[in-house]
Structures are given as structure tokens and as C-alpha cells.
């Protein structure tokens, strides 16, 4: 039997890898330029937004913990079934987005010109199977992976130090403060995994709030370090590249080791696997609330099949990929699970539920 309860640091290791995959496979867009010094400050806004955005999620549990009977009957309430269905749907799209981005990365940088659909489907199957091991196994693997990822990325970044040109940096807020704030918001909404905390919180032991803040700070600082090397080594060239972080890594050399990108790519795959497996776990948990009699295994299999079908449809056409990277879609992917669903739940618990209780007692 796999142990399911995890410590807060273990869980946030998993979440850290998940959010790191976003910066490793960060795609330049006309809306947000990577090459400006402003991009080094955006993670600071990310930290602030993430901490604030976490508040509704933590409020849910504050409300639930007030009533023992509510804890037991929570999954029976229709409202929560609807909320859970929304969570499932959002993270279903989250898997598609992550896998499609990885597909684009793999077919552009790892095996250019190669049809990667089968490889991506295999990845989806692996992640779905991994999710069945539970949050405990994923989080504990996350701790080991964090050591590997941070160690290897740190080594690669240090070997890039010689290539950093300070003239590649630009004056701050060149495009205006308002643009900077909007770009920072678009940058911060990459971390939609924050919303998933609500579904797994009962399984996490320890001081979650403290670890959540630490996670936000470390993630933000990691982004700053990575972006420092991207801007410092590439300059404006970063904006011409589909995956600027990868391009920066290709410049790294250490003695006879000249292809550090191979090392870094292997590590990035770890992050992607952890992220997708975690999302599958969230989907299975969500739909288990909706369809109580259906097993998690079946939910995972069905989700994996559906994701594979959608990916096969998206993979061959860049326009279809563009749709899921469209700014309103990206914003919705963050706002719905991180703000709307937790807030709706809190309001329900605060306003509707006491009324129901009162009417029952009357």
C-alpha cells in the first residue's frame, strides 16, 4: 500500500517542479518580451500574486474545519460536485496545454522534424499510470527530482556566467509601468497549479501556509535566476527564439562538456512528467467526487485516452496549438481554479450553508 499522506515540504517540492516546467518551456510571445530587464522583476509580482491568490484556497479549509459534520458530508453536496467537475475540466485542459507545449518543444528542439505524437501519447500513458501511485509517491519522488533539477540547472547556469553580457540588459520600465504590470500578470498566471492545492490539502500534513509562502518565494527567485541568464546571454535574440531558455542552455559549456542542453532536457522531462502526473491525480480526485462509484483507475484511463485523442488532433497543426495558448484561455486557466472556484466555495460555506443549517433546525 502506497503511503498517501505527505509532508508539506514534499508536496511543495512536487509543485515547485511543476511550476519550473513553465519557465523551462517558456514560449516567447509578441505580448510579453523576454529580452528586457523588466522580465527579471516580473517574478517579484509573481510572488505577490501567488501569495494573494492562495488566500481563497486556504479560506475553504478554515471554513470546513469549523464543522466536523460538514467534513464528512462535503462530497455528498451537489454544489461541491459541480465545483469538483469544474476543477477536473480545468486540469484536463491543463494536461493538454502542458503536453502540447512539450510536444512543440520536443518536435522543435529535441527531434526536429519528427512526428512526436506517439511519443507524447506514451508520455501521457506513463503519467496517468504514475498518478495512480498517489500523491505520496509523486511528492516523495518530487523531493529527489528537486535535488537533481536544482543541482543540474545550477551547474548549467554557472557555466553560462562567462557568456553573460551586461549590455544585453535594458533600462527598466522602458515600455511603461502599466505594460510592466500587465506583463507581470500574464507571467504569474502560468502557475495554475496553485488551484489544485484545494483538492489535495487534506492529504498534506504540516504547516501548509508557511510552506506555500516559501514555495512562492523560491519559485519566484528561481525564475529570476533563470531569466537573468536568458536575458544576459541572449539579449534581444531571446525574443526571436521559440524556447529562449533552451537556446540559452545550448550556449553552456564546461571544459569538454559542450552539449549541456542534453542534460538539461532530460531534467526538464522530469518536471513535465511530475506536472502531468499531478494533474491526472487532481482529475481523478475531482471526478471521483462527481462519479462516486467509478474507480480512480477508470477515470485516469478515460482521461488519458481523451487527452491523447485531443493531442493527436492538436499536434499536427500550429493554429490549434495557438488556440490553447491564447491569452484569454491562459487567464481563464488561472482565474477559474485559483480564484473563482475557491471563492465560490467560500461564499457557499459562509452564506448558503449556515442558512441551510438554520432552516433545518427551524
Amino acid at each position, binding site marked *: 500500500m502506497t503511503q498517501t499522506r505527505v509532508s508539506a515540504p514534499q508536496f511543495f517540492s512536487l509543485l515547485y517542479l511543476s511550476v519550473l516546467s513553465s519557465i523551462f518551456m517558456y514560449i516567447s510571445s509578441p505580448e510579453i518580451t523576454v529580452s528586457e530587464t523588466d522580465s527579471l522583476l516580473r517574478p517579484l509580482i509573481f510572488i505577490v500574486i501567488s501569495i494573494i491568490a492562495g488566500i481563497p484556497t486556504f479560506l475553504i479549509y478554515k471554513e470546513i474545519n469549523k464543522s466536523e459534520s460538514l467534513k464528512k458530508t462535503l462530497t455528498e453536496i451537489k454544489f461541491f460536485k459541480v465545483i469538483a467537475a469544474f476543477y477536473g475540466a480545468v486540469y484536463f485542459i491543463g494536461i493538454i496545454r502542458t503536453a502540447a507545449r512539450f510536444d512543440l518543444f520536443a518536435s522543435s528542439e529535441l527531434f526536429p522534424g519528427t512526428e512526436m505524437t506517439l511519443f507524447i501519447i506514451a508520455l501521457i500513458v506513463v503519467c496517468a499510470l504514475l498518478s495512480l501511485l498517489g500523491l505520496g509517491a509523486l511528492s516523495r519522488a518530487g523531493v529527489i527530482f528537486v535535488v537533481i533539477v536544482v543541482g543540474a540547472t545550477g551547474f548549467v547556469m554557472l557555466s553560462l556566467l562567462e557568456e553573460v553580457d551586461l549590455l544585453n*540588459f535594458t533600462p527598466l520600465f522602458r515600455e511603461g509601468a502599466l505594460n510592466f504590470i500587465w506583463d507581470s500578470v500574464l507571467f504569474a498566471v502560468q502557475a495554475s497549479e496553485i488551484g489544485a492545492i484545494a483538492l489535495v490539502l487534506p492529504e498534506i500534513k504540516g504547516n501548509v501556509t508557511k510552506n506555500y509562502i516559501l514555495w512562492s518565494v523560491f519559485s519566484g527567485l528561481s525564475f529570476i535566476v533563470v531569466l537573468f541568464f536568458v536575458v544576459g546571454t541572449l*539579449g534581444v535574440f531571446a525574443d526571436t527564439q521559440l524556447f529562449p531558455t533552451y537556446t540559452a542552455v545550448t550556449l553552456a559549456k564546461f571544459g569538454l562538456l559542450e552539449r549541456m542542453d542534453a542534460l538539461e532536457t532530460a531534467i526538464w522531462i522530469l518536471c513535465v512528467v511530475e506536472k502531468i502526473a499531478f494533474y491526472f491525480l487532481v482529475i481523478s480526485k475531482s471526478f471521483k467526487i462527481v462519479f462516486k462509484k467509478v474507480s480512480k483507475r477508470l477515470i485516469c484511463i478515460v482521461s488519458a485516452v481523451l487527452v491523447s485523442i485531443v493531442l493527436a488532433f492538436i499536434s499536427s497543426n500550429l493554429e490549434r496549438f495557438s488556440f490553447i495558448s491564447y491569452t484569454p484561455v491562459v487567464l481563464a486557466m488561472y482565474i477559474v481554479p485559483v480564484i473563482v472556484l475557491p471563492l465560490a466555495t467560500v461564499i457557499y460555506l459562509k452564506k448558503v450553508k449556515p442558512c441551510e443549517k438554520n432552516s433545518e433546525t427551524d
Partner: protein
Amino acid sequence: MKKTVKPIKLLVLCVLMVCLFSSCEKAGTELSDLMIIQGIGIDTAPGGYRVTVEILNNEQSGSPGGDSSSDNKTKIYNAEGESVGAALMQLTTKSGNKPFYAHNRVIILGEEAANRDLADIIDFFERNYDSRASELLCIAKDGKAEDVIRAKLLNDTVKSKILEKMLEQSYKESLVPRMRIIDAVNAIKDETTYVCMPAVTVHKNGENENFVLDGCAVFDKDETFSMYLSSGDAEGLAFLNDEIKKGFISARLQNGQTATFIINEGKTHYKIVKENGVLHYKLTVDVSCDLEEVGGAEYFSTEEGFMEEIKGAAGQAIAKKMENTLIVLQSEHGGDVIRYGRRLSLKDNKLYKSVKDDWKKVFSECRTSVDINVTLRRIGEETFHNKK
């Protein structure tokens, strides 16, 4: 039962690894089926471009027991097309193999090709999946890139590798600037920076030929070739552009003898002020060097002020190099290859914005004053007390 399942799982995984992870780029692609490009020369052709590539002769070098003496290490192919990309694709029809750019070392532009739009030429390398952003660019001075690729060097070796080493080493010796795809794109996209790339020529050396790095080429802001800087003039670029790595300085002493110094490290600091409507760049260059040789036996004494004299001579030599380079750069065909505009944007963006549209003129009129601080780190194995 469990004991047997584990080895079976491992066996299955091993078989999968052998089948899936044992190929180059595409499953089933043999090394000998790839056209592993080492250097690309780009010249003009009627209606487009002519590319000449040096590729590894991997049938010879890759086959077990291959005899390296019987065949050349590389082969040369050329092809023409409407664009650089189209010309490179045409290579397949001549070799039967698919071009593979991941190991390309240098891109050489013929002078005529350089006179066309540089941004147009390098777009292929910017966009191509295999092509690396760190590939080096240079120009074939007064000639064609094909002549450089086809040069008959003394040894049977990979010519592009030799050229790559020359370009890298000369950059490390602060003799010529480095121009990678990244640098070229950054300079092109910058509003005030001009592209400057090393120039190479092929010299006859008896029966054979050899490469010589001969200064560098300056491109205009419309990405067409503008002028050459001689080797001597190019030597001041590293000091002006804060790209001092290693290198050497020869300085004339008061008694007419020469002292040679090896540069260990250097740093240029900038202060920019606007004086009487003209930009004034106040440069402070800190150089740490070792004395390598000094002429004039009578100077080998404990004479006071001798150290100051040789340091001063080294400083003057550096200042002279910088001055010569600046004169050429500020001339009619010159341009801001030393990123003065970029530095101004970081120091005073408001002032930069007010002058950037007329930068060529502003740059040609700006003043530069130089203060050199030389630190003598070592004097070699010979003492100053050694009377000859």
C-alpha cells in the same frame, strides 16, 4: 513469482532502451547517412545564393577500421538556390544525404553576399532547428567564401575547425571581435549598434595555402557591407568595447627599445556626459599584465621610476590603439560597433531617446577621453637587477 517478475521487467526495459535510444536524431538514421556540415560558405549567384559546404567524410572516419590516410577527412559540395535555405536544401540532390547543421562551426560570407541584406542571410540559421545560435560568422575579405572553404591547407584536416579555432583564439587574445549568430541578430535589432565581423583571407604559402585573419568588416545599419578595419585598427576594439580577455601589447620605451606585455585581464569603465551639446565618453581602462620581454640592457637596474616608465609606455600603446580605431570608426563609412549607443541607453535613457534617430552623426561627433591604469603583475623569471 514476484522474484521472477522484476528481472523480466528489467529485461523488457533494457530491450526498449536498446531499440529506442540508439540512434542519431531519427530512429534508423545511420551516421553515414547524414551530411554533417562543418562549415558553410555563402556567395551570390544569379537570382540567389551559392552555398559551399565542408562536410565530414563520415564513410571514411566512421567505418570500423577506416583508413584515415586513404581518403580526405572532409568533402566539399556546393549548390545554388533562391535563398540560403533553398540552396542548402539543394545539397541533398548532390550528396544523397540530408544536411545536418548541429555541428556547423563557421559561416563564411563572400564579400558580394555580405553586400546584400545580412539579416536576410542569417535568418535561415536563426530559424533552423539544428543550427546553433553560437555559430561563428566571418567574411571572406576581397573574395569568395567558396575560396576559403576550398583552400588547400597543408594538412588533411577539417578546415572549418581550424578557422573556428583561429576566430575563437583571436577573440580570446582581444585581436578581433566575436560575431556569433546571436551577436549579429542583437546588433541588427539594436537601433544604434553596427555589425562588425572578423575578415579572413587565404594566403598562398608555396604549394599550399593558409588562412589569415585580416581585421574585420563593418556593416552599415541597412545590413550591407560598409568598410574593413585593418588588423591594427581592429586591435583597439576590445579595449573600446570592454571585451578585453587576454592578449599582448608592445610598447616603445624612452630609449627606443621595445617592451612586450601579456594581458591577464582588463576592464573598461565608462562615464558619459554631455558637454556643449556633444557626448563625451570618459573611458577608464584597467589592465593587469605581465612583462614578457624588454630590450635595452642598461635598463635592467633598480633605477627608480623604471617601473612607472614601462607601465606608462604600456598605457600609451593601449591609448594609441584605441585612438586609431576610433578615428576609423568615426569616419564616413564607420559606425558604432563599440556599442556606445547601447551604453548611453543604459546610463541615460532619456538622453539616448533624444539622439538615437541621428546616431550616426552623433557618434561621429562624440568625444572620447581615455585614462589607462596598468598594473604590472609579474616580470617573468628575470630580475631587474640582472646587468647584461
